[in-house]
C-alpha cells in the first residue's frame, strides 16, 4: 500500500501536467539506466548456447531436453508437424542425430521408432531456466574464490587503513597549531589536481623497488592516503569544538586518547562517508591492481574479469556471472547507505 502511495505521488492534490512530465522523465531514466543492468543479470543466467542465439532474448530460454531410454544423454526436444493429427497439429520429438539438413528423431513415448525430419520443419521446444551452474562453476572450476578473497582483503584492509591514516592527518591539521600547517594542507589538497594516471609510473617504480610487486600490499599501501579523505575529515573535525579537547586535556587524557575517544567517535558521520567512498574506490579499482598484480593467484575480481576475455575465445556465461558478483557489493553499499553518500558528496564536493 505504501509502495502504491509512493509511486502515485503528485505535486499537489490533482494530477498536474508537470506530474505527468516528471513520471515520463523518471520512467525513461529508469529504463535507460536500469535496462542494461537487468539485461546483464538475465544474461548471466543463460547457457552458452542461448547467449550465442540470434535474435537474443531477454529471459534465459533453454531448449528442453528429455531422457530417452537407450540413449545416454538427454536429447533435445523439437516441435514437429504431425501429419496424423490433421492440419496444424504438432507433436514433440527428440533429436537423436542430425546429418546435413535431415535429422533423425524419435518420439520419447516410443523410442524404437525413428523418424527422418527436415530441420526446417521443426521448432526447438524452449523453456525458461536459470542456469545456476554459471555461478556454481565459478567456485568449482576456477580460482574465483581466490579472486573474491583478494578483492575483499584489499578493500577491507585499505579502507580500515585509509580511515586510520586520514583521520590522524585530519586531526593534526584541524586541531593543532604548528608552523607550516596551512602549507601542508595545501600540498595535500594540491595532489587532487594530479590525475592518478600521471603518478602511475612513479608508483609502479616505488612498489617495484620496495619489492611489493605481486603482493596485495602493493595495491593497499599506495592507496591509503587520500587527499579527499583528509580534506573531508578535516572539514568535519573543524566543527568539533576545541573546548571538548580542552576538557579532555583537563580530564587527564593523552593526545592519543583524545583522538581515539573524543575525535573519532564524534567524526563518525564523516568517517562513514569516507568508508563508503573507500570501499567503492578500492573494489572498483582496476588500473593500480593491473600494473602491480600480474600473477593470477593475486588477481582481484576486476583483473580476473579482464583476463576472462581471451583473445580468441571468451566464455561469456562465466564472464557475465562474475560481473554480476563483482557488482553486488557496491550495489549493496549504494542501496543501504545512499543517504550518507549524497551528504558526503554534498559536503566534500567529490565523488
Amino acid at each position, binding site marked *: 500500500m505504501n509502495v502504491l502511495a509512493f509511486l502515485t505521488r503528485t505535486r499537489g492534490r490533482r494530477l498536474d501536467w508537470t506530474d505527468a512530465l516528471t513520471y515520463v522523465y523518471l520512467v525513461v531514466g529508469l529504463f535507460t539506466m536500469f535496462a542494461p543492468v537487468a539485461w546483464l543479470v538475465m544474461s548471466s543466467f543463460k547457457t552458452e548456447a542461448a547467449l550465442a542465439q540470434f535474435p537474443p532474448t531477454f529471459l534465459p530460454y533453454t531448449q528442453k531436453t528429455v531422457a530417452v531410454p537407450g540413449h545416454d544423454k538427454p536429447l533435445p526436444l523439437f516441435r514437429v508437424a504431425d501429419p496424423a493429427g490433421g492440419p496444424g497439429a504438432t507433436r514433440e520429438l527428440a533429436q537423436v542425430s542430425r546429418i546435413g539438413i535431415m535429422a533423425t528423431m524419435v518420439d520419447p513415448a516410443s523410442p524404437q521408432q525413428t523418424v527422418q525430419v527436415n530441420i526446417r520443419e521443426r521448432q526447438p521446444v524452449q523453456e525458461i531456466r536459470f542456469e545456476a551452474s554459471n555461478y556454481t562453476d565459478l567456485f568449482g572450476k576456477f580460482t574465483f574464490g581466490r579472486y573474491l578473497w583478494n578483492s575483499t582483503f584489499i578493500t577491507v584492509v585499505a579502507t580500515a587503513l585509509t580511515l586510520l591514516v586520514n583521520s590522524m592527518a585530519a586531526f593534526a591539521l584541524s586541531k593543532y597549531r604548528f608552523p607550516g600547517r596551512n602549507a601542508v594542507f595545501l600540498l595535500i589538497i594540491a595532489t587532487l589536481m594530479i590525475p592518478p594516471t600521471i603518478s602511475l609510473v612513479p608508483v609502479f617504480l616505488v612498489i617495484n623497488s620496495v619489492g611489493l610487486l605481486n603482493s596485495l600490499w602493493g595495491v593497499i599501501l599506495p592507496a591509503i592516503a587520500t587527499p579527499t579523505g583528509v580534506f573531508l575529515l578535516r572539514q568535519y573535525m573543524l566543527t568539533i*569544538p576545541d*573546548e*571538548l579537547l*580542552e*576538557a*579532555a*586535556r*583537563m*580530564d*587527564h*587524557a*593523552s593526545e592519543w*586518547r583524545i583522538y581515539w*575517544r*573524543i575525535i573519532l*567517535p*564524534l567524526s*563518525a558521520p564523516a568517517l562513514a562517508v569516507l568508508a563508503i567512498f573507500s570501499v567503492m574506490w578500492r573494489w572498483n579499482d582496476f588500473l593500480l591492481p593491473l600494473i602491480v598484480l600480474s600473477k593470477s593467484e593475486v588477481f582481484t575480481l576486476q583483473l580476473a574479469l579482464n583476463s576472462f576475455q581471451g583473445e580468441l575465445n571468451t566464455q561469456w556465461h562465466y564472464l557475465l556471472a562474475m560481473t554480476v558478483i563483482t557488482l553486488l557489493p557496491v550495489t549493496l553499499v549504494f542501496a543501504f547507505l545512499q543517504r550518507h553518500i549524497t551528504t558526503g558528496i554534498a559536503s566534500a564536493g567529490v565523488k
Partner: protein
Amino acid sequence: MATLELRSIVKTFDRTTVIRGVDLQAAHGDFVVLVGPSGCGKSTLLRIIAGLESASTGEVLIDGQRVNEVGAADRGCAMVFQSYALYPHMTVYANMAFGLENAGVDKREIRRLVDAAAQMLRLDGLLERKPTQLSGGQRQRVAIGRAIVRDPKIFLFDEPLSNLDAELRVSMRAELRELHRRLGATMVYVTHDQVEAMTLADRIVVLRDGCIEQTGTPRELYERPANTFVAGFIGSPRMNFVPLAALRAGLPGLAQGLPVGTHEVGLRPEHLRPAPAGQGLALTVQATEYLGAQGLVRGTLAGGVRLEALVDAQALPSEGGTLWLAPETGQVHAFGADGARV
C-alpha cells in the same frame, strides 16, 4: 591545601598583549572571581592558570610550586567551561568517569566516586542519559560533577552560568555557593556579570585591558572603589560621575570638604536622597522607570551632566519637572583627574 599565586603574568598573542603583568594570590578555600568587561583578558588568565595557554612571561604557582612547565592534566585543576564541553557521545556517567579512567582509577572506585558526586548534584536518575537529553541546568551540573569527581586542588569556572536563563542562574548561583562551602576548595571563577561576582566571591578581581584594577572583598569594592572604572563597573544601576564644578554649583558645602585634587565625584543612584528645593543638585527629569518599591529617575544636571537616582516609588517626579537631590553623608566618592580615588 591548595594555594594559587600568579606572578607578573604577561600574555601576548602575535603582537597584541592581552595580559599586562597580573599578580594575584588566592589562599586555600578562597572563592576568587575575575570580573571585567568582555575582552579584558579574564578568560585568558583562567586558561593560563589551567595550563591550556602558556604565559608569555611570569610564573604560575600552585601550592608554592612553579607549574608553568606542567601540563594541564597534571596541575590538579578542574575546569567548567562556558559551553560545558560535555562529550556529546558519552552518557552522563561516562562523562564524569572519563577523567578518572584516564587517571587509571579502579572501576569500582570510579563507580563509587561518580555515584557520590551524582548524588550531591541531584543527578542520580540521569546517569545513563546523553547530554542532549538534559536541560541546561542539568548539563551545568554534569559539568560541575565532572570537575568534582577528580577531587581537584583548584576549581576553575569560565562563565558557567551565562548560558542559563535568569531564574536558573540565580538558583545555580546559590548552589555553587553551597558547593564551595561544602567542598572548601579553592575556586577561581570568571564572569562579566558583576551581580554574579558580588554574590559569589570572597574576593573579586576587577580586570580591564589585561590589568588588575582592584582586588578586594565585594564590600570593599562597593564601598571604596579604587578608581572610576571599578566604581562604574561594580553596582547596579551604575554609579553617576559628577564633575566637581557641577557639584559645587548645587552643594558648595560638600564640594568644599572634598580632598585636594578631586576632579569628579561618584554618587551611587541608591545613595541619592530628595533634598529641599534650592539645597542640592537640581535634576531636570527626562525619564522615570517604575521598579516596584523604588523608581529610577533619569535626567540631567545643569551643564548637561547625566544623572540617575533611585527614589521612593511613591515620590516619583513627573517627567520634565525638577528634582532636588543630595547624597547621603559619607557616600561621596572623590576621584582625581586620572580616575584614581583621592
